[in-house]
């Protein structure tokens, strides 16, 4: 484990990380991101891609009106995204990767998905604004972990980051990572508030340097527009690739996960993102899938994506387009 590297970092290290972050060519980045949409993915590959995307989805409900009943319904959808899959497709579809809820709902979700292999992710640290004192935010993490969360989605203090107080942001990430214990950490950069790609890259490098192997960086809370976009995600994937290569030379090769969240609604979008992951992060061996093409290193934060994935799989199996009432979801 490389967690010791993170723990011994100083504010001087953090400032250096931000200063050394490469600048981003916005025009090239956007051009390249558009290019991923031009691949032709048909039949068997498409079905495989749709199922993979389904198994990578964090089914999310983050509303003020969330109730235990709503969370239980969400969990049922997470376990069995398409209740008639065996009849229509002739096979069981994978469950989604995780359900993502507020800390108060962690216990309910934990109870529902116990034994299914689905993780419970909880947003914490004053989600979505991050405007609480650090003590309150850490306490929230501890409560969520104690209630049974496998994953913690934290928000960074964008105000501090934009004001140049990088050490403060790095410190809160380190403390949150420590408070997570065995739970995985996802650091939400809220790229919609970071304004420039250069800032996204700096924040990505700062977060990556302060989290553990297998932790995630995540684009957005879903409460700010724009949420995840392909260029922003590509920028963060490049930061992850650079980290892997940099650390790989010294033999430790840290793999940081990626989670675009918010704004990914269609199966087509999801396939574009998978193409982007495959072509940006590997594959290490030609002809094989990138090591990031797995739910342990790549996630989609979405609530409506599952409906469209199921709809496409249904269309490919039956040859007709589905109606709204065919779908189990919202």
């Amino acid at each position, binding site marked *: 484990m490389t967690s010791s590297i993170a723990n011994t970092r100083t504010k001087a290290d953090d400032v250096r990380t931000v200063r050394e972050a490469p600048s981003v060519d916005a025009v090239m980045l956007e051009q390249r991101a558009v290019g991923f949409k031009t691949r032709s993915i048909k039949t068997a590959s498409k079905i495989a891609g749709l199922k993979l995307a389904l198994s990578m989805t964090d089914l999310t409900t983050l509303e003020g009106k969330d109730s235990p009943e709503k969370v239980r319904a969400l969990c049922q959808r997470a376990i069995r995204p398409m209740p008639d899959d065996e009849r229509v497709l002739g096979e069981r579809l994978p469950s989604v990767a995780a359900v993502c809820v507020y800390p108060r709902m962690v216990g309910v979700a934990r109870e529902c998905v116990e034994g299914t292999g689905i993780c419970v992710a909880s947003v914490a640290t004053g989600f979505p604004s991050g405007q609480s004192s650090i003590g309150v935010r850490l306490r929230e993490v501890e409560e969520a972990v104690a209630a049974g969360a496998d994953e913690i989605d934290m928000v960074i203090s964008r105000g501090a980051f934009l004001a140049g107080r990088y050490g403060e942001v790095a410190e809160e990430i380190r403390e949150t990572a420590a408070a997570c214990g065995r739970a995985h950490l996802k650091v939400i950069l809220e790229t919609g508030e970071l304004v420039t790609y250069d800032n996204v890259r700096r924040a990505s490098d700062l977060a990556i340097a302060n989290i553990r192997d297998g932790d995630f960086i995540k684009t957005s809370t879903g409460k700010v527009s724009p949420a995840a976009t392909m260029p922003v995600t590509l920028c963060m994937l490049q930061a992850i690739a650079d980290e892997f290569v940099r650390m790989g030379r010294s033999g430790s090769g840290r793999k940081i996960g990626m989670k675009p969240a918010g704004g990914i609604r269609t199966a087509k979008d999801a396939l574009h993102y998978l193409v982007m992951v495959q072509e940006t992060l590997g594959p290490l061996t030609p002809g094989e899938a990138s090591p990031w093409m797995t739910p342990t290193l790549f996630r989609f934060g979405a609530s409506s994506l599952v409906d469209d994935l199921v709809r496409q799989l249904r269309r490919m199996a039956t*040859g*007709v*387009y*589905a*109606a*709204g009432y*065919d779908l189990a979801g919202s």
Partner: protein
Amino acid sequence: MTDRLAVQKTYKLFINGAFPRSESGRTFTVKHADGSLHAHASHASRKDLRAAVEAARSAQRKWDASPAVLRGQILYRAAEMLEGRRDEFAALLRVVDGLDAEDAEREVSASIDRLVAFAGWADKFQQVLGSHNPVAGPYDNFTMPEATGVVAIFAPEAPSLLGLVSLIAPAICAGNAVVAIAGARSPGVAIALAEVCATSDVPAGVINILTGDPGELIPWAAGHRDVDAITAAGVDDAQASALREGAGENLKRVTIHERPDRDAWFEASCEGPEWIAASIEFKTAWHPSAV
């Protein structure tokens, strides 16, 4: 300096209030009646059909909930817009459909009148088609017509304008949203009609118009589970059975108008409430009466 660059019109599709090209990138040529090139038009694919059905589905609920009087006013406004552009439509019918000047004028006039007729029906067909049923008990028993939802329309090749208007107007006057697939020969008239709709306060998505090869879209429209009814005219026997077969899977209402004669479309019988009945469902409700 008198030589201007010619401004050639390229006909697009009409989906969700916008005029996109076909997702597939395909086009086809529209010929004048004498065989020379008139324009290029978009050749809609099944994915365009899917997009149009999605647009229609999301627009239908609000359209249905809008007051019947308002739906009638909007249809009347479409008639006003068509009246204002009658020269353009008459010219298209002459050069593409090959009608003589008198026939072209007659078809445009009939199309405008048909819109006005169904504008009038919007708040009246409920009384004509609905009923207060006699029952043995202290109850009132009502049967009320309600919009069926998303209606796919296959329009005849001729009369290109009047046929399309005669199928769209009754469906939307009842509160349905439509995806109309125009006849293959005269897409220009259909898209000009779309421009009329776009400037008539018809909400985006309530009327969607596709052009291309109707035969190619028939199986997809018939099988699409989010289409609630299909109204077609000018389809051959094989296409009619393909429509009925696909529609059987989720019990769509299918109405196929057999009107091989062009003149038949001009008859007053095309303005009756039975044309609205092709795209409605009846709901019967019991209510305790105060005895």
